[in-house]
């Protein structure tokens, strides 16, 4: 049970809220980079609307969504050589938000010098655009390993999930759900469809642990038949504070990134890298990174539940737009969830005290490449994990799935029995 006040404190992300203040200390993915051409794009982040644009000199910016003049939507403006021009009266703003042209004002007016649109910061990394909309001075954009490795293939799946970000993050420190939601329930659905049940994901958890560390919370697990020598325990994998899960195995490594759009919607990004241990990877330019939408519902409006991420989405969304934690009943298997809530509360207090929370980087030397721990022999067998996950996870929607299998030297999967 959590009090209603504490539930609001941990789930409300808008400006001026405790969690909103914390989350505004971080950079957030906001758009696949290839989706920002010479047309402005409106996006919602942390309960506020923003417009992204790329000027004629390839500079990128993020401004408040409405023109400071008469509040028309800047999304309906157009990009020029030095900035974004509002479609209503032609006022133009540079990437810092400074108004640089007011065509209707007297020629010698200095009015424009006193007009500035609220601006965040926008940077490109690994095929994504990242936004910072918090207080100055902005920290460095963290160069987590998967975003900056130069010898991998990548693809990016994404979806808007209609629920609060916290219940999605809590799923990432809930190891037991794997053997039930994906193992048992997933196998039940597969058996109904005449397919073979899942094996790796159904393994029983014998022991789990959660270590709060510099990157967030490191998860460890021992499955039936394993010991503390196995990588699932000895290495583990992290929840990267405040918004990512790092997971993978067998050369597949990915982030699940949870971007709060507002209190009841989350932009979920699945950011994959593919890196075989035994062969070189042909060069892939950032501009060639495939981006695909992950469908949540079938043609009847039902959750697509026959794969891992669809089952997760079903569990997250059916908790409600914002899970009512005043009526929950937590047990000992929920200690990871409790540890995460405590960590958010602790970091909110740090921000209140004027300090940087964890995972805020200001030293360039510490930000060249932030290496994160992650087991490769996942669930006791990395290759088997990769096989099961590529088709049993949302990567089944990737337009380069077959190319990835060929990259690893995997055989094409056998046709599924009707």
């Amino acid at each position: 049970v959590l009090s209603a006040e504490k539930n609001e404190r941990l789930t409300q992300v808008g400006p001026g809220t405790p969690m909103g203040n914390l989350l505004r200390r971080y950079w957030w993915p906001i758009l696949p980079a290839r989706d920002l051409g010479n047309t402005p794009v409106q996006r919602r982040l942390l309960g506020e609307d923003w417009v992204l644009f790329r000027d004629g000199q390839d500079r990128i910016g993020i401004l408040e969504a409405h023109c400071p003049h008469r509040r028309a939507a800047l999304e309906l403006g157009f990009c020029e050589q030095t900035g974004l021009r509002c479609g209503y009266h032609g006022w133009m703003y540079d990437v810092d938000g400074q108004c640089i042209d007011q065509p209707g004002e007297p020629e010698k007016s200095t009015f424009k010098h006193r007009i500035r649109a609220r601006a965040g910061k926008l940077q490109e990394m690994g095929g994504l655009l990242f936004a910072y909309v918090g207080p100055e001075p902005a920290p460095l954009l963290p160069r987590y390993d998967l975003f900056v490795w130069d010898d991998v293939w990548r693809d990016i799946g994404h979806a808007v999930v209609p629920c609060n970000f916290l219940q999605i993050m809590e799923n990432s420190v809930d190891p037991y759900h794997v053997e039930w939601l994906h193992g048992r329930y997933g196998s039940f659905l597969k058996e109904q469809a005449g397919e073979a049940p899942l094996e790796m994901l159904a393994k029983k958890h014998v022991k789990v642990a959660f270590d709060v560390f510099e990157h967030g919370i490191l998860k460890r697990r021992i499955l039936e038949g394993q010991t503390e020598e196995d990588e699932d325990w000895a290495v583990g994998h992290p929840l990267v504070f405040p918004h990512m899960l790092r997971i993978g195995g067998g050369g597949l490594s990915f982030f699940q990134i949870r971007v709060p759009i507002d209190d009841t919607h989350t932009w979920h990004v699945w950011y994959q890298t593919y890196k075989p241990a035994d062969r070189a990877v042909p060069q892939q330019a950032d501009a060639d990174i495939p981006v695909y939408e992950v469908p949540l519902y079938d043609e009847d409006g039902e959750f697509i539940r026959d794969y891992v991420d669809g089952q997760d989405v079903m569990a997250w969304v059916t908790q409600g737009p914002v899970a009512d934690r005043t009526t929950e009943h937590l047990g000992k298997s929920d200690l990871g969830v409790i540890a995460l809530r405590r960590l958010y509360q602790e970091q909110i207090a740090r921000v209140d005290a004027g300090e940087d929370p964890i995972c805020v980087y200001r030293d360039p030397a510490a930000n060249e490449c932030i290496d994160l721990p992650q087991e490769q022999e996942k669930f006791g067998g990395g290759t088997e994990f990769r096989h099961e996950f590529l088709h049993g996870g949302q990567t089944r929607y990737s337009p380069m799935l077959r190319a990835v299998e060929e990259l690893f030297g995997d055989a094409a999967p056998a046709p599924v029995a009707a």
Partner: protein
Amino acid sequence: MNGTATVRCCPQCGLALDGPRGFIQEYWEASHRHFLCWCPACDLTTTVTLAERIESHEVEE
């Protein structure tokens, strides 16, 4: 008694934890009620268990 009891203060420094800055999360283990607490003043993380009875020797697991 224990069915309605709760934890309100830090066991180490006595700060009230049931306000916005403290953290108390209740969870259960069999009939035992546990409260994981974190204190923003002294940074103590601890678990308080409300005991239904004082037990001596326990059965080996």
